[in-house]
């Protein structure tokens, strides 16, 4: 692993994003608009807004980074630049870490912006410190990035990559406990929920925002989130082949 190559890759990815101001605007503004919509939707039922606003805020970066990464990595595979990089003195982990660094930075900006709006203007409360929410959002973004990286290996076209979002992300949103508390789920649904990384990301956010609970279960949540991130990155690295047929 080379720090120089990792930084070079991160700078390159950020430069590419810089060339695409519309994507940056969408990445930064869409979560803000959505949280505002949520605020208006539960105008008279503040308790619901308080309950789901915090966790949602931390899940936006996960979803957007999943999409952005799977498309960007697919492009890199299809355009031949990945093959070119594999002929250079660059470790696979340098490429992945470079991507992670660039997107984590973007996620931090995204999470900070939506937090400022939600906590500052919409009256969203959090029991834990607000920086903890931003930090969780960034770690979720890196989780989304690593998942996106992994699934990009299974897509041949951008259409397919986009379809991984409803296939891969939506079931996790449904089962993470946001719509129905996990305790009320049928046994088999809870079994599936137990096996999905979103469940732990959501639980950590919900503990941090609503109860300010940084207990053993919170530690487990964090451990699972980081563990799955590392696992997905390792699996993603194994899909970057130096030699192809």
């Amino acid at each position, binding site marked *: 692993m080379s720090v*120089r*190559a990792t*930084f*070079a*890759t991160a*700078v*390159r990815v950020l*430069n*590419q994003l810089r*060339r*695409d101001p519309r994507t940056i605007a969408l990445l930064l503004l869409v979560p803000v608009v959505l949280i505002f919509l949520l605020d208006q939707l539960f105008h008279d039922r503040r308790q619901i807004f308080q309950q789901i606003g915090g966790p949602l805020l931390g899940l936006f970066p996960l979803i957007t980074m999943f999409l952005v990464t799977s498309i960007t990595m697919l492009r890199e595979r299809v*355009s*031949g*630049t990945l*093959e*070119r*990089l*594999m*002929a*250079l*003195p*660059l470790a696979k982990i340098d490429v992945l870490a470079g991507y992670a660094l660039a997107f984590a930075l973007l996620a931090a900006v995204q999470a900070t912006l939506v937090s400022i709006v939600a906590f500052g203007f919409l009256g969203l409360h959090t029991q834990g410190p607000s920086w903890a929410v931003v930090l969780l959002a960034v770690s979720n973004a890196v989780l989304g990035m690593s998942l996106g990286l992994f699934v990009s290996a299974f897509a041949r076209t951008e259409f397919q990559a986009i379809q991984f979002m409803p296939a891969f992300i939506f079931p996790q949103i449904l089962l993470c406990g946001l719509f129905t508390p996990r305790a009320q789920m049928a046994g088999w649904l809870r079994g599936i929920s137990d096996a999905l990384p979103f469940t732990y990301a959501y639980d950590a956010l919900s503990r941090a925002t609503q109860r300010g609970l940084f207990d053993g279960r919170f530690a487990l949540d964090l451990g699972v989130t980081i563990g799955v991130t590392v696992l997905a990155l390792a699996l993603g690295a194994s899909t970057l082949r*130096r*030699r*192809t*047929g």
Partner: protein
Amino acid sequence: MIDYRPMPSAPSIVVDKLRIRRGGVIVLDDLSLAVASGRVTGLLGPSGSGKTTLMRAIVGVQIVESGTIAVLGEPAGTPPLRWKVGYMTQNPAVYGDLTVRENLRYFARILDAAPESVDEVLETVAMTSFAGRVVNKLSGGQRARVSLATALIGSPELLVLDEPTVGLDPVLRRDLWKTFNELAEQGKTLLVSSHVMDEADHCHDLLLLREGKLVATGSPADVRAQSGKQDLDEAFLVLINEEVE
């Protein structure tokens, strides 16, 4: 005392009984050849003859079924070679959403080359005045030159260039061939593929490939003598047809 260092005249590339299958089809079969150091070797043949596959194998990004390739005295694709071998892919492998300079700077950082090397290679490929332009806005020939520039960064000992002059105007083509010869005079080894036979006269040595097999080798004069034709285009047609019969 015995000097174990390779003689300066030792070939840079030695291919021995190489066999490669792509998509179930045998593309190269029992191919053996050598590429001399400090010379420009032209790899010629009709499209689909296996030129790109051979080059991919030499730079170590192609899965090889059997046989060996030694590059600068080491098995092809080993990590130290990634510093010493410059590779230009057939389709320009550069980032379309970056400027010319940003692209080259990225490659320079990975190769730990001095920042000035970017200006040098820009000069070599006559793209200095386009340094600030986004690659997507360039013509096909200009994009090919950026891709060539990425291969020149870090002044590698061996250059593997896959159709570097395709789509370029005659003046530029002449200039590039002049550059290739100058690089060889400085001691670099160049393997340059082309399907345009009239470029063969710019090379010191020729390798003529047809359907994955070597049909002729030697200097342009040798090839003329072998075929009994003065015009290289006709010489190759004779040699290719001889093989068929």
